[in-house]
């Protein structure tokens, strides 16, 4: 457009060689620049003027009526890039950064709200890390099977009604009982939306859906303390970055006695178990080992069960109440 208008304006200024003045040769340049910028701002008026000349404008109707008749479709100014999988929401880089910032603040202040945990998990699961995790899956036979089959965990695919009838010490029965005890269901896991690559999104989804199995295997409850302990174990074993962040910062938001218990009992347990764990837990095909004996499973994986957190919490609470009562009596 610029070169075209320059050529046109130059042709207007062409004179015989001997009469051309060198110091005026910048004029075509300036004139074409003005014409171009004028064109940018006057484009709509020029279009309307052309229409007027060609008798295409009905001057008896108002602007609003004309727009009603035209019925132009409005194109969005911003469009997201195409999706890679059905639930995909492709975010721009600055949006991912903003999501990381706000969800980390929200997760610290309100860890009970699922939306912050979900957003923080997906914004910190950066492609280099997920590619490393996928490599771990590809290097293991069961991991390859999982990547091939793409299992999706819901209460139907796990056959929850059948799990009830499994033998007492089987992993399936332990998992079912843990779900009942904590009053949760495997259907509440949110789908992954913000991870761009399709296979890496599956890898992260698999991690999210298997989270409850780690809870059941270790017996830790869904209370904040229990979640932090499981998160720390996950970080040491699977390497999820946001689990590490949680293990580092979340205890700051706990009550003092809970934090002390966590740091003195459960963090050492997590370090010890992760050191002795024989495989990356993302490579366990949980759906196929539901009928296995849970102690055998733990021995095979190299996991030890930590002290029952609910019992410890209950004992500690009773002791605190007893101590308060004694103090009250002494002070009377």
């Amino acid at each position, binding site marked *: 457009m610029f070169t075209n208008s320059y050529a046109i304006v130059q042709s207007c200024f062409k004179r015989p060689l001997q009469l051309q003045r060198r110091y005026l040769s910048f004029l075509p340049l300036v004139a074409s620049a003005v014409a171009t910028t004028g064109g940018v701002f006057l484009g709509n008026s020029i279009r309307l003027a052309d229409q007027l000349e060609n008798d295409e404008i009905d001057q008896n109707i*108002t*602007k*609003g*009526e004309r*727009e*009603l008749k035209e019925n132009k479709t*409005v194109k*969005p*100014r*911003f469009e997201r890039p*195409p*999706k*890679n*999988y*059905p639930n995909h*929401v492709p975010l*721009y880089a*600055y*949006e991912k950064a*903003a*999501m990381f910032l*706000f*969800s980390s603040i*929200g997760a610290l202040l309100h860890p009970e*709200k*699922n*939306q*912050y945990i979900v*957003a923080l998990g997906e914004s910190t699961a950066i492609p280099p890390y997920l590619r490393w995790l996928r490599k771990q899956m590809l290097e293991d036979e069961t991991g390859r099977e999982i990547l091939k089959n793409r299992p999706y965990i819901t209460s139907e695919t796990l056959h929850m009604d059948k799990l009830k009838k499994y033998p007492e010490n089987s992993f399936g029965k332990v998992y079912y009982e843990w779900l009942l005890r904590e009053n949760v269901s495997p259907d509440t896991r949110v789908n992954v*939306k913000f991870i761009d690559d399709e296979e890496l999104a599956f890898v992260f989804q698999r991690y999210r859906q298997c989270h409850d199995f780690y809870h059941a295997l270790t017996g830790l409850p869904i209370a904040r303390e229990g979640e932090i302990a499981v998160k720390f174990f996950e970080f040491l074993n699977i390497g999820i970055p946001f689990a590490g962040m949680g293990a580092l910062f979340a205890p700051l938001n706990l009550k003092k006695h809970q934090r002390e218990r966590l740091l003195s009992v459960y963090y050492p347990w997590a370090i010890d178990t992760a050191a002795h764990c024989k495989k990356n837990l993302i490579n366990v095909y949980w759906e196929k080992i539901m009928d296995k004996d849970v102690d055998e499973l733990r021995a095979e994986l190299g996991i030890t069960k930590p002290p029952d957190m609910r019992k410890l919490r209950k004992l500690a609470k009773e002791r605190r109440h007893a101590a308060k009562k004694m103090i009250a009596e002494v002070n009377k």
Partner: protein
Amino acid sequence: MVGIELEIKAIANRLRQPFNRLFSTSLRASNEEAKLADFGYRKVPVEQKEKLVHGVFSSVASNYDIMNDVMSMGIHRLWKCHMINKLDCGMRPNSGKPLQFLDVAGGTGDVAFGLLDHANEKYGDNESKMIVADINPDMLKEGERRCLKTRYANSPRIKFMVQNGEKLESIPDNSIDVYTIAFGIRNFTNIQAGLDAAYRVMKPGGIFACLEFSQVHDPVLSYLYDLYSFSCLPMMGQLIANDRDSYEYLVESIRKFPNQEKFASMIRKAGFYVPGKGYEDLTFGVAAIHLGVKL
């Protein structure tokens, strides 16, 4: 011609969506006479739009005011106050006839209570009646709950009705003095039908007032507003209300809504007399109040 356009649109749709959606869109492509309505930037069959909008508002009902506050940074309250002051409704002291107000799509009731309060404070009007109509019963229940905390609790002056704004079946002709609709008309499947229903129920001399999001004229502000709407708002919806999709729909429906002049022509087409330009821009065109009078 129309059939070919629909088929081209269906093929373009198919190319844009991933493989496993092929079968669900092929049925739509084969039905050449399918009438499609706008649901944000998506096209959905006309019958489905109502259900989808219903779903959007059921999910946002309880968080509605928090999200409105966050989205417009509290300015929506100023807009509503401005509209109530501009309308200046109330039974004048020497008149013996109480007014009948109708607030459509006013589920949570803030405009309705504001109108009645204004009439009471400025004109001492304690008799004018109000009907709050909304197509979504969840929003209406929220409104009824809030009504219990105002001085109109359990009062026969306010009636809450589940009504489709495009038909207003239970409201008799020529019965309404003031018809207000705040941020509701962009969700109608057929906006012209909503305006025609409004014309039908109003008394001659009645005022139609519509407060709605509209188009920003200034190009720089429009760019910033678009950036805010497409990036910030869905993210806020996701993090605060845990509902990204509803807020994406809300943003898209705002963009799809006709601009100020076009909407004023639609009001004129329904039969209203539109004074002057017909609209007043609020906050550079982010919202606009459209007025019409039934003569």
